[in-house]
């Protein structure tokens, strides 16, 4: 009897041991399969043929050579391969899942056996708290939970945006076909009359009371928007003025002011968020953008009064990254300057967001181009012409130039570029009666057909991290970069006319006027060269270094140093400083001119300078 009891006991302990061993093995097995499954899952995500980078690259290349059958074949092969790999992985996951299920069943069973074998009826536990106390506590917690539910519901009522409420069908007209047609008609409308109208508006408007007038005018006749060479010349609608060529047609500009005393400062307004881009102007409206890591904003000011007409946060863009890319302090996320096509203002940010607003601040379209891989931050500004928005998108992960439809944001063409990452902005230059898009990067300066995106010419002439944009004048394109060189290239022949490396700018771009080239360097020198030969004509030592680019207006060269001191020179072969007024605030952006006023974005304020 005793013996039997003992044997039984042995069996029990043996069984418990077995159960524990099996449980451990099953547990390890299940965990192992689980980890494998997880890895496989990640693998699937990566090999997902729909998001394959390789395929995308190939497709991109195909778009530049659409008729290349070889490419098509290759893409098919790759696609097939990826799909096969994908489905094999799926099969593996499925098998793994069954294995894991099996392991889990064994684990649970053995655990159950283990615990039930060790099972013994415990001495019943003693009651810890009194029933009454328990109930009171319970009431309190039910009360809390109930209140929480109700409070959450109430909060959701306040914090949920209902876009449908503000929906007005009219606003969306921009997208309807009829509107597109009416825009087409615009070109036929007589330009003269409308221009006169805008002219009168500008003259009569100098007081606050009349500020609203242009808005009314615009809303009343939304279709009479003229965007042609004449109006672009009148408006400083892009970085470094019309077509980015550093020339303004404005006259009656003030040459003296003083930020400290307020002399000739017509107004100044504080900019809530910082940004390095320069303002742009269309008629009475001035646009600029700002960004920090939490938000990106586009502002529209009445340029006569300095009143903020609207500000729009740039968000809810499909594909926009949740966390912003890292940029350096001196570039930030709002380095690129906006552009305006008379109907819409376009802005691009360092996270690849690009957005279009109509001039009244209604969002028209927005896309994300993919986060640009750029160690300082993307800084290339926008240009628009012929209903296309041009974007120089030179990044570490490949470079390209593209034209988006200004109406819809859809890509019209996209051309892959072979250069390194760059920070320069494109310019438009009329060569042989046709506008070309000209861009500078390391190593090439090149011109593109704006209708097809085809590269027309390219010259390898630059090195380093290219910041300055090119300039066109007198039949030549000038390009320069610090620690590299300054070159003059004939865009028709692609031939280098001259090359020099005496003074070179780092950030600031060159300007051209009447056979002279002007540059402003980080080492605080303004220099003038003969445009046809590259001969240094004069140099001028300034107080601080230059980030802002020189502009030509009224036959003068205007440039701001980083300390906020402006230098105004007579344009010509001899150094003639007209004046050097102080703004009293640091300046990194480029001045903007319109109707006898100079607009400049300081580090904190936006200034309007004119004769008062």
């Amino acid at each position, binding site marked *: 009897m005793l013996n039997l009891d003992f044997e039984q006991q042995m069996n029990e302990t043996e069984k418990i041991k077995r159960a524990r061993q099996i449980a451990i093995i099953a547990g390890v097995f299940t965990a192992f399969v689980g980890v494998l499954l997880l890895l496989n899952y990640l693998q699937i995500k990566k090999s997902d043929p729909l998001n394959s980078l390789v395929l995308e690259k190939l497709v991109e290349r195909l778009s530049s050579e659409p008729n290349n059958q070889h490419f098509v074949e290759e893409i098919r092969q790759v*696609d097939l391969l990826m799909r096969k790999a994908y489905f094999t992985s799926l099969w593996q996951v499925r098998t793994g899942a069954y294995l894991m299920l099996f392991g889990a069943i064994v684990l649970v069973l053995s655990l159950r056996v283990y615990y039930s074998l060790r099972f013994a009826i415990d001495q019943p536990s003693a009651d810890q708290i009194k029933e009454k106390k328990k109930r009171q506590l319970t009431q309190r917690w039910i009360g809390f939970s109930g209140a929480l539910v109700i409070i*959450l*519901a109430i909060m*959701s009522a306040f914090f*949920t945006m209902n876009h449908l409420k503000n929906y007005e069908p009219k606003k969306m007209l921009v997208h309807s076909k009829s509107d597109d047609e009416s825009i087409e008609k615009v070109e036929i409308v007589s330009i003269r009359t409308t221009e006169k109208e805008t002219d009168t508006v500008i003259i009569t408007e100098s007081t606050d009371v009349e500020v609203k007038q242009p808005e009314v005018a615009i809303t009343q006749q939304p279709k009479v928007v003229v965007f042609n060479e004449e109006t672009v010349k009148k408006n400083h609608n892009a970085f470094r003025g019309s077509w980015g060529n550093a020339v303004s047609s404005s006259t009656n500009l003030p040459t003296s002011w003083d930020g400290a005393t307020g002399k000739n400062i017509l107004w100044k307004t504080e900019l809530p968020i910082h940004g390095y881009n320069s303002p742009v102007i269309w008629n009475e409206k001035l646009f600029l953008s700002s960004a920090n890591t939490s938000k990106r904003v586009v502002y529209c000011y009445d340029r006569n009064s300095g009143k903020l007409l609207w500000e729009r946060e740039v968000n809810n863009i499909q594909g926009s990254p949740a966390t912003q890319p890292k940029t350096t302090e001196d570039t930030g996320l709002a380095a690129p300057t906006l552009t305006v096509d008379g109907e819409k203002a376009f802005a691009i940010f360092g996270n690849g967001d690009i957005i279009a607003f109509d001039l009244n601040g209604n969002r*028209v379209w927005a896309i994300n181009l993919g986060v640009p891989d750029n160690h300082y931050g993307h800084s290339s500004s926008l240009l628009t012409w012929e209903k296309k928005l041009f974007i120089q998108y030179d990044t570490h992960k490949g470079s390209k130039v593209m034209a988006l439809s200004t109406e819809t944001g859809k890509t019209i063409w*996209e051309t892959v570029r072979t250069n390194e990452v760059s920070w320069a902005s494109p310019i438009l230059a009329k060569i042989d009666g046709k506008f070309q898009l000209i861009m500078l990067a390391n190593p090439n300066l090149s011109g593109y057909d704006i209708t097809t995106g085809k590269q027309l010419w390219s010259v390898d002439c630059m090195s380093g991290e290219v910041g300055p944009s090119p300039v066109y004048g007198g039949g030549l394109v000038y390009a320069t970069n610090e620690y590299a060189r300054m070159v003059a290239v004939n865009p028709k022949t692609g031939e280098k006319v001259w090359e020099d490396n005496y003074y070179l700018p780092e950030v600031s771009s060159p300007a051209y006027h009447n056979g002279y080239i002007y540059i402003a360097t980080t080492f605080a020198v303004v220099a003038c060269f003969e445009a046809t030969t590259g001969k240094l004509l004069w140099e001028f030592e300034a107080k601080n270094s230059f980030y802002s680019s020189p502009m030509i207006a009224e036959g003068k060269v205007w440039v701001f140093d980083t300390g906020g001191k402006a230098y105004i020179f007579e344009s010509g072969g001899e150094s003639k400083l007209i004046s050097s007024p102080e703004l009293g605030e640091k300046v990194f952006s480029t001045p903007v001119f319109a109707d006898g006023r100079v607009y400049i974005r300081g580090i904190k304020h936006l200034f309007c300078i004119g004769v008062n």
Partner: protein
Amino acid sequence: MVRLYKKHIPLKNHNNIFLGLIFLLMTVPTQIAHSQQQRFPKPEFQTEYQIPETERPNPRAPFMEYLDLFLLLAVLSLTTWLVLKKRSRKWILWVSVFSLLYFGFYRNGCICSVGSLQNLTLSLFNEGYSVSFTVLAFFVVPLLFALAVGRVFCASACPLGIIQDLVIVKPIKLSPWLQKSLGLFPFIYLGLAVLYAATGTDFIICRFDPFVGIFRMGAEFHMIVLGISFLLIGMFVARPYCRFVCPYGALLKICSLNSKYHLSITPKDCINCKLCKDSCPFDAIDFPTDEKENRASRKDFWKFVFYAALIPVLMFVGGWAVSGSYKLLSSAHPDVYLANLLVSQPELMQNTENLDIETFMSSGKTLEILVEEAKIIQEKFRFGGWFLGAFIGLVIALHLLNQVIFRKRSIYEANRGDCFSCGRCMDYCPVGKPEHPFFKDKPEMVVKS
């Protein structure tokens, strides 16, 4: 630009959502759900390959449907007998394993009583939608059984419950306050499920069924994670889904509370030996009440009056609050979601890569009509929100009220609402079991009691 394939771009929610526990549970996953609707597109190559016609499986043969129903009835009847007469946990366990294999793994967790409540709701609110007899029966039969004998459905027929029951390894005790406050959620979930089904938005119970992915051996990654998490938690907190989530369980609970014949822990008379006290993994055993406390509780009378008066107040406040949250609630509806998206981001209308938007654009509907429709749906939510909120208010008030009602109890017995009729506790009762260890080791205690 040449595009050879379409890219999957999941819709993103752009609402300024305040993520609270409840509202997280009810909306965020719904939005994830939108991405599930995207399909794996076929390649857009032009080849000679003929893409075959899509085949649609025939509906399940009626005979098979009746087989399901027959098996359900059989399982429930058998369990009733096992619970009330045979009193065998072991057999209940085996019946439940059969149900798990059949209703769970073989029938893939569908047909399901838990979800059937939504089909029923939709058919009541939408004339174009009707439910088959089997669906109706699957909804009603377990409730009828619950009314008669308690939650035998949970014990051995519901695959969701059984899979959790099988993984219980070492259950811990939860404090009553935690249980009771978490116990509010099934009712809220029930109300939400009804609202979403009635407005034709979604079947959220099915969408967030954590175990169906395991039964089908495949689901969205996050649902698998959810299912596994429930099972892992379930090893220590027994049947977490049943107790704190399952909306059908809430209905069963109400029915079972009023059940005519319910499982009793002891076969004859409770001898107050306390042996079964800790036997229930679900803390569903009520203890005998203390006479002293009983007397003291008379003071709770005014509290009772207060809570009773609170009922209409809470119902009104709840109704007002939830109806006010209609914007958030309705954003789970595909039309409202799309309308919101397109109004806030009009440029997306040009986005032919998003299948939802493309479908809408090719339907020829204008945005105006879409917005109008969306507004009508929002109105429905605002209206339905009053009922949902009032219901939630009522549930809260009744739960509070229940805490001040003091029932005299002299024995250990299963709480009719919370008991799943799993039969575990019956094994602990020494009454009528001379070979019980209790008698072996401590015979003197019997004398004492």
